[in-house]
C-alpha cells in the first residue's frame, strides 16, 4: 500500500527574505506572506471554530499579531509553523468564547479504549466521493468532522489536510510527538467510523 504523501513544499529561502523584509517594516513583503498562507489559515480556523465569521476574524487577527510580533520570530522554526501556532490559539480562544460552558483546550485528551477500536468493518464503494454531489460531499465532511473534539480535529487538519509533518504539528500545538500521533490515530479512526454510513459498499455494487 502506498503511503500518504504530504503536498506542502516550501521555498524556504525566498520566504526568509520576505520575513526579513517584513520585519524591517516592508508591508508589501508581509502582504506576500499573507497571500502565501491566508487560505491555509482560513481552513485551519474554520475547521477549529466551525464558524465562518469567526474564521474570518481569526485570519485577520492572526496575521496582525504575526506582524506585530515579527521581532520575536528568530527563524529557528518555519514562519508557517509559527503563524499556525498563533492562528490555532486565536481559533481556540474564539471557540471558548462561543462555548463558555465547555472546556476547550488543545490539551483535551479524551481517552477511551472504544474510540480507537473500529466498531463497524465495512468496505467502501470504489471512489466513494463520487457517490455524492460536491455540495452533498462538503456537507457530509463538514458535519462529520464537526463531531470530533476540537483537540482531535485540530491535529487532523494540521497533519492530514494542511500536510504539516508530525514534528511541525507538535511544535505548532506545543504537544509531544507521541501525543500528536495518539490524537491523530483516534481522529482518523473516528472519522472513518463516522463516514462508514455514507460510503460503505451498497447492495448491487459489484465493482471490485
Amino acid at each position, binding site marked *: 500500500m502506498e503511503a500518504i504523501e504530504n503536498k506542502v513544499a516550501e521555498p524556504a529561502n525566498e520566504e526568509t527574505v520576505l520575513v526579513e523584509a517584513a520585519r524591517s517594516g516592508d508591508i508589501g513583503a508581509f502582504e506576500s506572506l499573507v497571500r502565501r498562507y491566508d487560505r491555509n489559515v482560513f481552513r485551519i480556523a474554520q475547521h477549529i471554530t466551525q464558524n465562518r465569521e469567526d474564521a474570518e476574524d481569526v485570519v485577520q487577527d492572526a496575521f496582525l499579531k504575526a506582524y506585530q510580533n515579527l521581532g520575536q520570530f528568530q527563524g529557528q522554526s518555519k514562519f508557517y509553523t509559527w503563524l499556525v501556532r498563533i492562528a490555532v490559539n486565536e481559533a481556540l480562544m474564539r471557540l471558548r468564547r462561543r462555548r463558555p460552558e465547555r472546556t476547550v483546550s488543545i490539551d483535551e485528551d479524551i481517552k477511551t479504549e472504544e474510540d480507537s477500536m473500529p466498531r463497524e468493518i465495512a468496505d467502501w464503494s470504489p471512489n466513494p466521493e463520487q457517490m455524492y454531489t460536491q455540495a452533498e460531499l462538503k456537507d457530509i465532511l463538514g458535519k462529520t468532522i464537526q463531531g470530533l473534539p476540537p483537540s482531535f480535529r485540530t491535529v487532523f487538519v494540521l497533519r492530514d489536510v494542511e500536510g504539516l509533518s508530525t514534528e511541525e504539528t507538535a511544535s505548532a500545538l506545543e504537544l509531544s510527538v507521541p501525543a500528536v500521533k495518539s490524537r491523530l490515530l483516534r481522529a482518523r479512526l473516528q472519522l472513518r467510523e463516522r*463516514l462508514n454510513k455514507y460510503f460503505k459498499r451498497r447492495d448491487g455494487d459489484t465493482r471490485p
Partner: protein
Amino acid sequence: MKCSDFLKELTDYLDDAMDSRTKAELEEHLQWCHNCYVVCNTTKSTIEIYRDSKLYELPDELRTRIHSAIVANCRSHKSNPQTASSTKQPSPEETPQEKPAK
C-alpha cells in the same frame, strides 16, 4: 501480530514512518486479516477525501476584503505601534514563544 497491535501502528504505517522490518510484519498481517485490510484502506480513503475536498475554501471576494483589513491594520500599527491596532494587544498565551523545529 494481533489486530490491536496493528491498529496501534496504523498511523505510522499510513505515513510510511517506520522501519522496514515493522512494515513487513504489518503487511504480513494485512495479507490474512481482512478486517484490518478494510480498516486500513478506508482510513487511507478518509484522509485522502478530506485532503482533496476543498472544504472551507476562501472565496476571492472575502479574501480581498481580509487582505485590505490586514494591510490597513499593519499600516496603522506601523505608524503608531502603541495604539493603532484594531485588536487588543496579545497576551502571552496568544503569542507563543517560538520553538525550534524538531
